[in-house]
């Protein structure tokens, strides 16, 4: 149960962090999470899109359809100013969380 919630809570931060660099589409986000976490955080597409929609509803990210020549129409997500703020807060929360974990259980953030 906790694992699931940690995963969910962290995924949100992950997504925000990934599109902080530049706007990305869903498939790319999924691929990046999988690649950068070396498969540990591979999670289901069924959770990815709902999470994106929810973040968009909360106004943290913004989706936009982009059509490039020779490519299919894709929806790119970028960070909104609220998203940026939320990401900073979440990073801080995670940092606090891990330092607390470290102090208690000697778990260092990677």
């Amino acid at each position, binding site marked *: 149960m906790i694992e699931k*919630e*940690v995963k*969910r*809570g962290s995924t*949100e931060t992950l997504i925000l962090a990934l599109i902080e660099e530049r706007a990305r*589409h*869903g*498939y790319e986000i*999924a691929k990046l999470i999988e690649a950068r976490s070396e498969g540990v955080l591979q999670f*289901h*597409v*069924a*959770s990815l*899109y*709902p*999470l994106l*929609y*929810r973040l968009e*509803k*909360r106004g943290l990210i913004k989706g936009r*359809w982009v059509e490039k020549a020779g490519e*299919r*129409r*894709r*929806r790119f997500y970028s960070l909104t100013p609220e998203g940026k703020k939320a990401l900073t*807060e*979440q990073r801080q*929360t995670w940092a606090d969380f891990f330092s607390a974990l470290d102090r208690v259980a000697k778990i260092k953030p990677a």
Partner: protein
Amino acid sequence: MSDWKKYVREHLPHLAIEPGREMEIVDELAEHLDAAYRDALAGGASEQEAYKLAAELFADWRLMECEVAAAEHYGAGARLGRAIGEWNQPLNSQKRGPIMESLLQDLRYGLRMTLKKPGFALVAVIMLSLGIGANTAIFSVVHALMLRPLPYFEPERVFSVCETDNSPRSRDGLSTLWASPRFEMLRQGVPTMDFAAFNSVLSKLTGAEEPEQISGEYVSPNYFSVLGVRVIAGRAFTEEENQVGGSKVVMVSHGFWQERFGGAPDVIGKTIELNKTPHTIVGVLQPGFKGQRGSTNFWAPFNSDLQPGSRRLTDPNIWWFEVIGRLKSDASRRQAEAGVSLMTRRIAEKYPPHASFRDRQIKLVPLRDRKLNPVIRQSFLIMLAAVGFTLLIACANLANLMMTRMAPRRREIAVRLAVGATRWRIVRQLLVESIVISLIGGMFGLLLAFWGVDLLNKFKPASSGSIFWANYANAFKFFSIGLDAPVTIFNFALAVITGVVFGLIPAIQATRVDVNDALKEGADGTAGLFRRRLNLRQALVALEVAVTLTLVIGAGLMLRSFAEMQAINLGFDPDRILSFYVESSEQNTDFYRQLRERIAALPGVESVSLTIVSPLGGAYSNQAMQVYGRPPEPDIEKSRVFFHAVNHDYFRNLRIPILRGRSFTAEDRAGTKRVAILNATAARQFFPNEDPVGQRIKLGFYEGTPGEEWAEVVGVAGDVKYLSLDGEVVSDVYHPNDQFNEAHTMVARTSHDPKLLIGAIRNEVRAFNKDAAVGSLEMMEQRVSNATSSARFNTSLMSLFALLALLLAAIGIYGVIAYAVSERTREIGVRMALGAQARDVLKLVLFQGMKMIAAGLTIGLFGAFALTRVMKNLLYGVSATDPLTFAAVSLSLAAIALLACYVPARRATKVDPIIALRQE
């Protein structure tokens, strides 16, 4: 190259969101699949393998749909969002208490869903407010009559002290009157109780412009402490004030104080004039206390009304007041009863009772039982059951409606279940919805009940001698009926219970979904569970039919009984008859004769007769009759006759037939030979095989009373209902009043509306003798109508509830069949396409309806058979299992039920197979 959009569209169920948004989501997911597919191809997979790999990414479409729906929908989304968000703010959201918060959420959601379908809500609220309102109105009576404690201190320790009385005169088997010397023995002989005496009177409140009759009680000084009522101003009576001919003091009721003195604090010491004598007010009693009749305005010391040397205080055979007793604090009822039973014997030894009183026992009757006759109790319990049944039918209808309404919401429920809501949580949510509706119904119901109680009070049966010897009017007065706090609580508690009753089955049904099935079906698909639900609906309707049948049979029996009562042969013609008695201190034999002549001379009066008691006038004196040449009958009950003294034109005036012999004539007067006329019942009872005319009889209560002469029977008159409408006619013996001079009651037949003569008669009596008073001035037709008013009251209420039930049941049947037809449109279309005729379709649908109706009727017949027995005491001239009523009602109900099926069945035959088949 696969069409991933089509793939997504095929696998992702409709999200029930804005279509444009849904298309975006489909596009985006398809894009993801396409990208995965291309990557796989680029990685060297075959088309088939790539397709498989991509498809596997989205294997769990159910989860996808739920999560997307949850993200897109506000309510469920908020829940999920919170679950995730909790990691960021772990403690804050717990503060309000999760249960309260989610209940509030349910409530808001319930209100929103209710407003979303205002049609359903409207129908539901109408049905519920009618049902709940009727229940509350009837419950207010039941509560006042049976549940609410009497407004006394420890009312369960107060008893009415009566004697058992098995004679036919006593309708409740009790005699309440006491004689002073006997009471004195009782008071001193039972140490475990305190006894108080009271005598109810009607007095004239004079002093104001218009004299007015008000009701009062002459009470022993301890009356208030025995009852346990408070004096809120001034004081109670002292022993000194209770002397014979003592001081003229009164206490008044709270209502009287408010009404006549505006609640002025200085009322103590003021005077009111009773029967032209000033009385000083010494105290005011607690609000709500209205004496033993329920309408008492003043109280005066018991003995203060008596004249010195009055025989009332010394004669053990003058029975004139009533007694109440309170158990002393350390005594039990059993101890008191033992003491009372001992005193029964002692008193009988000292003052030997009349032969016919020998079996009497002194009995302690709880005050409530004394005021609340078993017949009234029973009739209102039956009414309560009847309205309860009606509400139950409304619940069954609403449960059916709810189930229909649930069908399109099954996907919503499935999503919520999939997202992780527990079944209980959803049942609760749905229950909150039904309770919200039910509470709105309860609010309107309370308004209706307000109005209903008003109507009940207004149309309460008049007091009269009738099958309901129970005096409804007095009971209503004594236990003031109204909507008080407990009744209001009942109203809303009933609303909540009702909400649960009609909401629970649909809620359980709706959550018993296989999430997979529900999500796979089309948005409004219900095929999978259709059969099972329809069976449940049919069962509900069968229940409705059963309950309705029971109710309608009950009402039918009462209607038949009422018709029987209307058809009772009164034995006289009440048309345009006025009855009244004249009271006067004048003992002159000519007084009534002269007065009669004066009234007969009034314009508009056809004829006036004198009698001791007019028909349906209630109790009158009875005596033992002896037949000349036969030994005296030892059993007084077998020789009991009722005694009348009438003037000679009485029979002609009231149009009572003379069956044999002759009527009285002007020649039958004092000094001539004593004559008598028997009624048909007396003739049959005493002279079964002989001609009564020419026989000689003698009346006299005590065996061997000296001085009574033998009277010759000169005729036999038809039976007349004197005591009550529905009771057996007793043996009556008429004598010419000129030979007895005891008749103080007049019956006048008028040539037009008797109401117009009331004033003229009063004036004439006053003009004739200013001390004479007119009492009980009644129109005979009104009296006859009063005699059936309890029956009319019960029958009307019962019929009203039965009609309501019938209407609701018809709607219920119609609803279910209409629903079944709409669900089977396709099937019917196929059948018709394959050659079925309209007739076959009609048969198909009707058969479906008939099954449930037949089941309901069968159950209902058993139910009615078992339940109508409790009505036995409320019925006259018809058995509680009257086969005619049972058969007629069953057949009519079956006909109405079939009609309710027929309407939608007809519609089914109009199904166009082509349209029906195209529907899917």
